[in-house]
């Protein structure tokens, strides 16, 4: 027990800046919406710890999505705000299709008020606006909410700028399970260990992470509250315990255990009770993943002679094979909309991200890399985050479902891997 505590350190203070993920856009959508986000009047009085203004954070968010092109705005005098009369002709001349105007004001209670309004410049109409009251500590969170609002109004889909991601950083012999904002900011270590950590999985409410840690020299499944630095063992049976996946209602976990011989899939409560065997095969069954309606478990199995993806109804019945092309298809993840399945396919000796449309059975390879692993859908289904190797180093890549938008997330002097995109904020 003492050794365990010595080997595993919890760190909740934000890590130093060098540790942070840096994000580089390596591909963008074919048609990006040109948007003008004018500096918010008075925003210079309310900066985030890195010195960024709210407007700058909103611009970076929308640019990063690959669906927007942020236009350079010269300093305007007088500075327009959400209360100004909009000169649409002037914004049209700047080639903007959409426009955000706003202001920041200090309140007598020491807090701030941010107001903004979004305009459709082409149709010459206001699309809506919001006012937020915030403290200095909430600058980034507020900017992400503004970006989410703009994104949803203009694309019809939920924005994911306010979500969080989990991933593992390996630095030398040290493994760190990190949680950060979707833009890589506010990185916080959930667990630091000298032994490997893999397979983080967010609970549907975003409050807990299940993961696999080798801190006791073999894979054991733990659950940890995001806010409380305390591990709870979910599964520590004979052999390997791994591949946790949450049911959509958060009440059950599916996982892979070798306690009865081969790796098989079991269901268990997040507190470690009510263990129930789910698959019975002569081969390897692992990597369970619930369909968003909770009716099916997708999983990887080599029961047919090579690893392929299967699914089985939670209420019982035979396993149905889902992938047929190629000799190695693993790591199934269902799109939150339920319509497609992302997985890793061995394609001519390379391991690449594949997307299968479940209705049409059309398959598409979305990446051009060699060693892709661990895909994870953004909660709006628009991007897939995955781990890959670039120039010998582990990095994360976010790819849009059409393969066009691409971002690379990396850390200096370390390997990043095992990404898991958290749920939308309630």
């Amino acid at each position, binding site marked *: 027990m003492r050794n365990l505590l010595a080997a595993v350190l919890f760190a909740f203070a934000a890590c130093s800046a060098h540790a942070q993920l840096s994000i580089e856009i390596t591909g963008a959508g074919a048609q990006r919406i040109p948007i003008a986000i004018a500096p918010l009047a008075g925003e210079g009085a309310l900066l985030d710890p890195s010195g960024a203004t709210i407007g700058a954070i909103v611009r970076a968010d929308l640019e990063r999505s690959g669906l927007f092109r942020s236009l350079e705005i010269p300093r305007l005098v007088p500075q327009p705000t959400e209360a100004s009369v909009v000169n649409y002709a002037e914004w049209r001349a700047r080639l903007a299709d959409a426009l955000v105007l706003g202001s920041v004001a200090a309140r007598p209670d020491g807090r701030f008020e941010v107001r903004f309004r979004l305009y459709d410049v082409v149709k010459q109409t206001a699309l809506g606006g919001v006012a937020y009251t915030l403290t200095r500590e909430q600058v980034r969170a507020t900017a992400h909410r503004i970006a989410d609002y703009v994104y949803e109004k203009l694309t019809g889909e939920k924005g994911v700028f306010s979500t969080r991601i989990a991933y593992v950083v390996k630095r030398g012999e040290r493994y760190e399970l990190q949680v950060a904002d979707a833009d890589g900011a506010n990185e916080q270590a959930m667990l630091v260990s000298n032994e*490997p950590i893999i397979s983080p999985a967010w609970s549907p409410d975003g409050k807990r992470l299940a993961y696999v840690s080798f801190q006791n*020299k*073999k894979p054991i499944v733990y659950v940890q509250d995001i806010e409380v630095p305390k591990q709870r063992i979910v599964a520590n049976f004979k052999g390997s315990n791994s591949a946790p996946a949450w049911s959509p209602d958060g009440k059950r976990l599916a996982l892979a255990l*070798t306690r009865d011989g*081969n790796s098989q899939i079991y269901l268990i409560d997040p507190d470690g009770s009510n263990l129930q065997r789910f698959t019975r095969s002569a081969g390897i069954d692992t*990597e369970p993943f619930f369909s968003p309606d909770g009716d099916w478990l997708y999983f990887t199995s080599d029961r047919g002679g090579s690893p392929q993806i299967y699914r089985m109804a939670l209420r019982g019945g035979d396993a149905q094979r889902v992938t047929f092309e190629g000799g190695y298809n693993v790591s199934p993840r269902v799109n939150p909309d339920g319509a497609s399945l992302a997985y890793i396919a061995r394609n001519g000796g390379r*391991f690449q991200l594949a997307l299968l449309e479940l209705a049409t059975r059309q398959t598409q390879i979305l990446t051009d890399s060699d060693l892709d692993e661990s895909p994870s859908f953004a909660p709006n289904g628009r991007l897939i985050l995955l781990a890959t190797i670039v120039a010998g180093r582990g990095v994360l890549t976010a790819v849009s479902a059409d393969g066009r938008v691409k971002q690379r997330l990396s850390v200096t002097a370390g390997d990043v891997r095992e990404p898991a995109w958290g749920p939308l904020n309630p």
Partner: protein
Amino acid sequence: MRILLSILIAATLAACATTETPGTQPPAGVEDRKPGTVQPAPGPGTQGVPSKPVTGVDLTGGKPAPTPGVPPHRDPASVLAARSVYYDFDRYDIKDEFKPLIEAHAAYLRGQPELKMLIQGNTDERGSREYNIALGQRRSEGVKRMLLLLGAREEQVEAVSLGEEKPKELGHTEEAWTRNRRSDMLYTGEY
């Protein structure tokens, strides 16, 4: 009785060999190389009667000359010094070339009932980390099964998987992958 036992072992081993070879799978193309490892030749008669009890644990990690009194599994000149079984990509069947090694360790475990062994199954980095944990477990369980069939006792042998998490060889090359697809046999005090 002794003859009967050896016949039984031979028979079960043969059965094991046939069931362990999945005939349905085509051999994986480029990965089907033989691992580039060299089995150390059996040394001179170092397995003689120990002249004095062993008290210390060798932590030097060096290669001392064979010493009378060093238990055979610690003797670099012994056949037992080889501990690794290597595999083809996505395979867990034990190749014929590694069967004599496992037989030697099984015989040693049979004669040293107090000794325990941990088998760690490993894979190369390609594909899924989770599938590789299951594959590594399948590899280590395969070695364990053969040891038990050859007379080692269940309580003596534990099989675990490290998946692709503890590569012996870093790097993303065919050579590194070949060395990392491996089961390692570790004795008490070595893990």
